[in-house]
């Protein structure tokens, strides 16, 4: 496959994304998810395969390469898993097997409010009909399946495009009039959530500055320009103000399998303060942030450590030699500190995230 001219073309776009991920020229979970999807679409459209395993293998190889390039952008791996899941689903439909797949889904349960009858999900990879491995015409399988697959990828794409709208759809149910909301950092999801609630409700937002990135300043300016009454406060006053706050709304970088999350540094501080005042903590995040991983190495800070120069200037030559500065991008927030995740698949408590993960991805893809 390597000598195939089409696969070298694939290689080029993959390598291009790899180097942009490595060099941090592409950051942010949604941006990386979109780029990954574009690459996967390209790869699938050019791939040659005569059965489902070959296709899955091609996608996995690309996915592994991308994830290795930047293990800290979880949405890359998540997108690959999601695409694989959709492809298998489409394949099962196309091969006219009974679609018993999502007879019970917690997402549907939450959204529609009614349980369905439970049937065990058979997962065996049986190879049936659909002219698979046809020796006379090896491309026939691909020819039949490809349009369906492209459609499936397009669905994922559309979901990403509309993720903010879908999350903020129910914003007015979460925010009530005259409430005081505390948030921090610059999260597009939280921003659109708050703005959409402002159409129906009159409330106040307190934004913490979120040093050292100071994303809070940007957030405050944006909310204030949308006509929401906004206060910008230093991070140090989060605890002092917590007694007045009705709700803490946070964004997430990644939602982990245990219901914890990685979020902008400062989130742990806010969540802990909220716990001591029993203030509810609400997390707004797209479903593409669901990650089948656990936090392993870093108890407080989370795996991505940036440049210390945001904290201590490089020109402080004397100090640079004597002090070790760490500048974590993300905090790890334990599930006990969180109350609910608002996703585009409905609202879920941290304890049921594992279930959502099982439905979103296939088990065999957890390790790419």
């Amino acid at each position, binding site marked *: 496959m390597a000598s195939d001219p089409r696969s070298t073309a694939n290689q080029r776009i993959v390598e291009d994304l790899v180097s942009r991920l490595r060099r941090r020229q592409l950051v942010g979970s949604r941006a990386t998810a979109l780029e990954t999807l574009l690459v996967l679409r390209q790869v699938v459209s050019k791939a040659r395969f005569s059965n489902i395993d070959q296709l899955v293998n091609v996608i996995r190889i690309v996915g592994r390469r991308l994830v290795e390039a930047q293990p800290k952008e979880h949405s890359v791996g998540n997108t690959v898993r999601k695409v694989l899941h959709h492809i298998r689903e489409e394949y099962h439909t196309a091969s006219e097997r009974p679609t018993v797949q999502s007879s019970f889904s917690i997402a549907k349960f939450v959204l529609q409010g009614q349980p369905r009858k439970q049937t065990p999900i058979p997962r065996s990879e049986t190879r049936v009909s659909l002219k698979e491995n046809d020796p006379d015409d090896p491309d026939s399988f691909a020819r039949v399946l490809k349009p369906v697959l492209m459609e499936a990828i397009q669905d994922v794409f559309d979901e990403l495009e509309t993720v903010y709208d879908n999350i903020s759809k129910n914003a007015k149910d979460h925010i009530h009039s005259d409430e005081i909301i505390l948030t921090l950092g610059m999260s597009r999801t939280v921003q659109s959530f708050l703005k959409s609630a402002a159409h129906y409700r009159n409330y106040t937002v307190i934004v913490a500055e979120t040093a050292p990135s100071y994303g809070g300043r940007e957030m405050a300016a944006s909310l204030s320009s949308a006509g929401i009454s906004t206060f910008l406060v230093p991070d140090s006053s989060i605890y002092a103000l917590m007694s007045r706050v009705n709700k803490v709304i946070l964004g997430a970088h990644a939602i982990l399998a245990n219901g914890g999350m990685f979020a902008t540094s400062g989130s742990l501080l806010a969540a802990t303060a909220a716990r001591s005042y029993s203030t509810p903590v609400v997390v707004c995040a797209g479903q593409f942030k669901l990650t089948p991983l656990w936090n392993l190495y870093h108890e407080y800070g989370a795996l991505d450590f940036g*440049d210390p*120069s945001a904290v201590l200037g490089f020109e402080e030559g*004397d100090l*640079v030699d004597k002090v070790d500065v760490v500048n974590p991008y993300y905090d790890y927030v334990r599930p006990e500190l969180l109350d609910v995740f608002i996703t585009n698949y409905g609202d879920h408590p941290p304890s049921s995230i594992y279930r959502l993960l099982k439905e979103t991805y296939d088990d065999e893809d957890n390790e790419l």
Partner: protein
Amino acid sequence: MAPKSTVGNEKLLDDQAEVLQAVILADSFNKRFRPLTTRKPRCLLPICNAPLLDWTFESLALAGVQEIFVICRSHPEQIKAKIAESRWSKPGSGIKIVPILTAKETFSPGDAMRDIYTRGLVTGDFVLVMGDLVSNIRIDEVVKVHKERRKTNKDAIMTMVVKESGAIHRTRSKADSAVFVLDSETSECLHFESMMGYPPSTIASIPREILATHPDVEIRNDFIDCSIDICSVEVPSLFQDNFDYLDIRRDFVHGVLTSDLLMKNIYCYVAKEGYAARVQDTKSYESISKDILSRWTFPLVPDNNHPAGHLYEHIRGNKYIDKDGTVILARTSTVGNKCLIGSSTRVSDNAQIISSVVGRDCFIGAGAIIDNSYIFSGTRIGPGCVIERSIIGSNVDIKENTRIDRGSLVGDGVIIGPNAHLKAFGRLSKKRETKTTGDESDADEYADSEEEEVESAQDSITVDLGTASNAIVWPPNAPDEDEDSEDVENVKNQRFMRLGDSASDLAFSDPGSESSGEESESSDEDSDFDRHLDNLPTSSATSLSLDPNGSSTDAIAESEFRNEVRLSLERAFTEGHSVDNAAVELKTLRMASNVPLSRVRESVVSAIVEKIKIIDGGGVAQRQEIANVVSRWGPLINKIGGVDMVETITALQTHCASSERLPLFGQILAALYQDDIIEEDDIREWHQAATSQGLGLSPSVRTDNIKRCWEIGSHMIQQFNEQADDSDESEEEEGEGTEDEDEEGEEEGDNSVDEDDEEEDEEDEENE
């Protein structure tokens, strides 16, 4: 390799689309890393387990450079092979890398630049970097700024990237730093003066013209010079024109900035964000390793974008362990903060690794201590060894219970021990195998005579390196090197570049005490490393001397110069040259003999004064003669390369005071004023100055004359005042009363007037 043909193709390509080109000078042109670099070029030494060249490529790739020329001199085959097998030559990297093999006779960056010119490699603005750069600065931004500037100013030939660091910084080289004088507004580099650790410099002299022409200048001694230069095509050709330029900074930048003929500008880009530094010596090797491990180079850090493509797991405390799971750390071993451990490395029981980098496939024996050291791949360190602040090459075998003290460099393939002790700053390399075949002598071609010399000197050195050792010991300092040479590579200055050397004894000691200092230092442990350097005179803005006269020029050269100027002007006078031609001639003379501008001015003024004939009886005829000469030659005074009218008047005064043309002073001054060569304000300023009043001079005829000239000046000032305010006559009468006191000496700012008969005449004349 066929450089000619490939170069031709590239040119065609470049014409079609503008490609950002970069030139890497992959040779260091010095021997600071010896003996590690005897069989390997410096740019392939690993730092944090990736060859320096890969870090440089990554830095350039980050900036979107599409075509890179690698100029290699020593060990070109190794560099070529490395480039061919690296991930940059794979399709999809988007970068084209062309190794260029330059002649063995290329001894300096200047020679390399001339080579670039003769090969015609570059076609547009290009990025010039050294092969030992570690940077995450957005060079493309700098290129953009540079190109924008070139649109309006064709003479802006180069932009140097510098990084603010503060005067004391581990990454800032003490041995080879510089004072930059920048225009605060445009960040044009106005003056460049390089500094050395030894001999320490406390004075930087800045040409006065800079301060006169630029209202707002910054004098900076806190920059890390990243050696990233955005050059226009003219730069290599300038090197070609000036064959004596060797170093890019000390010769080229300094030369361009001080030249009156080139009229080119060099700009600085002060990087506020990002990191850039060069591994120029063993000391910076250590500090840059630490910077990388402390993540200052983010996103260019081992766990994120390791240039060699290794994957590392980042663990709390900035520890990096290879991710592939082949690293074996014994349960009782300790790995401290800021460590990096490559794949397949085994660390045995009770071994300690503190702030060190360990390469791939290494073995660390039980109970070994590795402290602040850098160990390349494939090395075996036996049980119970202690290694402190040293660099150990690849495939070295250090047998049990060996101790290596700080600052040591151990070359590739050396075997030491057991139970050996390498003293501080020891340097070892492997004995060369006896040549058996013709091939081998080819490979050894690059092992220069220095290595042979070291080998032949082995008998005199008796160090116990253990029974199994195959090492040869390098002498502490190259014996034939001139102790007091002014070069950056002088022995004492080199100590500022040495790993683990605080050079604290150099800060105060005189040259004589150096050897004793070295002995005692090697015995004391690394207790107060670097802290002593705080006491170093860090030549800051406060100690800058702004007096151009302070730069001591040889008296003989100066009198020679005066003579030359006199002759040249005589020729101009007799042959009736134009003022412009005479000015060019003077500029050339000034540069040839390297004298300050004020000397030229003095000479010109005195030559013009001497040109005026003394006409007996004075009066109208004399005035006519003065007016003729001044109007013909006066403009020359302001064309010699800088305008300083106050100095002109002072020169006139001092000359007249010791000349028979003293009586003409007032008239000449008036004539100069009439021809706009000097202005009223300048006369006033001169008049205020203490030196022009003859204060502080020992009483002599000359001093008296100076005073007389000053009094004539007072007259003139008074006339200016009168012109401004005609009714102000009472002052003059008041002055008559103080006449006698004025003869004794004047107080500053005292504007009282003295009236001699002589001056009364002049007053009449000036009134006309």
